[in-house]
């Protein structure tokens, strides 16, 4: 997480390249959070933009710069909940809409919510990983995956060390997911109403 801290401190002192590094790491996370609340693409884009503008306003006074990921996720979730209510109030009111909601199976809803929360936690864990691991795992998720040769060249690693590095990075991702879950879920849950 020290890489994140370093990027935050540099961006706070005016380094635009560090800011781009933060956007590169966390843009997917912020977007995922907005979408997970059920916003359409236009509203999710507004929420994403507001979240980044807020982050820019507060980047100099974050209590713990290494926790930029949870800060962004929590801010995005709060803003997304706000906008979801805004949208609902601007729709033509259908007085019978609640009947449809009452038919929804509770277990299915909980399972879908848990899946979305898991997505957000994994996105955040990936975003705060050391750069080499992050790039390696992103490459592993490409479809189709790159060849070992081209991946090794891209990351500056020997082909023989790709397998062990990949395993180590996945283990690190797993630990980060465990560590970030309580933070992310506690910080956001109270503001989510489904």
């Amino acid at each position: 997480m020290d890489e994140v801290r370093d990027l935050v401190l540099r961006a706070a002192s005016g380094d635009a390249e560090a800011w781009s590094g933060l956007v590169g790491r966390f843009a997917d996370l912020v977007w995922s959070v907005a979408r997970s609340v059920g916003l359409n693409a236009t509203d999710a884009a507004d929420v994403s933009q507001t979240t980044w503008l807020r982050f820019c306003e507060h980047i100099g006074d974050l209590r713990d710069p290494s926790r930029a990921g949870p800060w962004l996720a929590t801010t995005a979730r709060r803003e997304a909940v706000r906008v979801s209510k805004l949208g609902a109030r601007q729709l033509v009111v259908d007085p019978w809409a609640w009947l449809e909601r009452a038919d929804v199976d509770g277990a299915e809803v909980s399972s879908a919510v848990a899946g979305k929360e898991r997505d957000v936690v994994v996105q955040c864990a990936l975003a705060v990983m050391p750069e080499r691991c992050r790039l390696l795992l992103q490459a592993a998720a490409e479809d189709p995956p790159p060849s070992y040769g081209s991946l090794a060249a891209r990351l500056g690693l020997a082909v023989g060390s790709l397998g062990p590095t990949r395993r180590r990075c996945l283990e690190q991702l797993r630990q980060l997911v465990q560590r970030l879950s309580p933070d992310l879920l506690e910080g956001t849950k109270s503001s989510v109403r489904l």
Partner: protein
Amino acid sequence: MTPDDIVFSDEELIDQLRRLRHELAAPAAVIAAATDAFRWRSVAVAVAGLEFDSLVDDDDQLARVRGSGAERRLRFASPGRSVEVAVVDNNCGLAGRVDPPVVGTMVLRHPDGSAISTPLDERGEFFFEAVGRGPVSLRPVLADALTSDFETEWVTI
């Protein structure tokens, strides 16, 4: 969900990353807008935080429906100063007041750099018509000043 629920095998994790990459990658325009947000970095300005938003902080749903109609009420505050705003739903008109009152101009900024302004009268009141939806921030500028040392947090209206 407890942390224990999220224990995956290597292959499950890779599968999840693949799906996230496919379904939840931020579009290029969203990334560009996030990158662009850095232009708004200002270090010499006090930011009034969003302290109250009737959309999420007002639990009395019935009172909201019966009372002020379609208004959404926002309050931004920083030590010694605040801005209260009512958003009128239909056209996103903005009516508000700065406290303590200042005479001058209220500037409403959009993330793309465009801005509109309206007078701040002797009661510190201002009104914008048909602002439209999206992120905005307000910045009061005193009559005898060129710039401001005070602005509100960005909020989506």
